[in-house]
């Protein structure tokens, strides 16, 4: 069971099952799904993700540690996909498991917010018209 992963293959339920050992009374999962709508009207075909892997995995671990301390023992797993992730596919999965649900919700939200803010991962929006653009921020 590796709690922090950067993968090139699709993030699919079997991969999430592997970390089912993480389950506790309340288990909250966040899935980030690539949207077809760029937010400024252009149609997105795919996102292309790139990571500084060593630093990103270390950041995942730091974020999970912080969540465990802030929210009373909750355990967190983070999987991020890199390379091309097409519209409708999962780019990131964050799982948080705690004896009680409030801590699991808080930790899951903290982890995805911090991941977006801090992890050295970048995305390029690849539009249906063939153009592309790097995007930062959440």
């Amino acid at each position, binding site marked *: 069971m590796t709690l922090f992963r950067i993968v090139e293959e699709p993030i699919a339920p079997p991969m999430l099952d592997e970390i089912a050992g993480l389950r506790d009374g309340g288990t909250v999962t966040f899935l980030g799904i690539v949207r077809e709508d760029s937010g400024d009207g252009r149609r997105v075909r795919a996102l292309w993700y790139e990571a500084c892997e060593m630093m990103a995995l270390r950041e995942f671990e730091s974020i999970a540690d912080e969540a465990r301390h802030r929210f009373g023992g909750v355990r967190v797993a983070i999987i991020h996909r890199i390379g091309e992730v097409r519209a409708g596919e999962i780019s990131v999965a964050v799982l948080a498991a705690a004896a009680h649900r409030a801590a699991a919700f808080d930790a899951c939200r903290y982890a995805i917010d911090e991941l977006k803010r801090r992890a050295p*991962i*970048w995305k390029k929006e690849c539009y249906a018209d063939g153009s592309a653009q790097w995007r930062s921020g959440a």
Partner: protein
Amino acid sequence: MRIRILAFAALRELCHAPEHAIELPAGARVTDAWGALAREFPALAAHRASTRIARNGQVASFEEALADGDELALLPPVGGG
């Protein structure tokens, strides 16, 4: 001394490759490595204020001193998730 520079995302594209090796005189700092690369790829210059630099995996200031064999990573504003 010899410094290895890794550039990511938009910065990688501006430098035309993910990795560059540069030679710097003894006493050089992070800012000198950035300067050397920006002379080779002038489009980099506009990104200095928004770029974070990691030296051997730890975030570093532009004023930090370099040592032979150091690896610098040029990190543009992130966008994961």
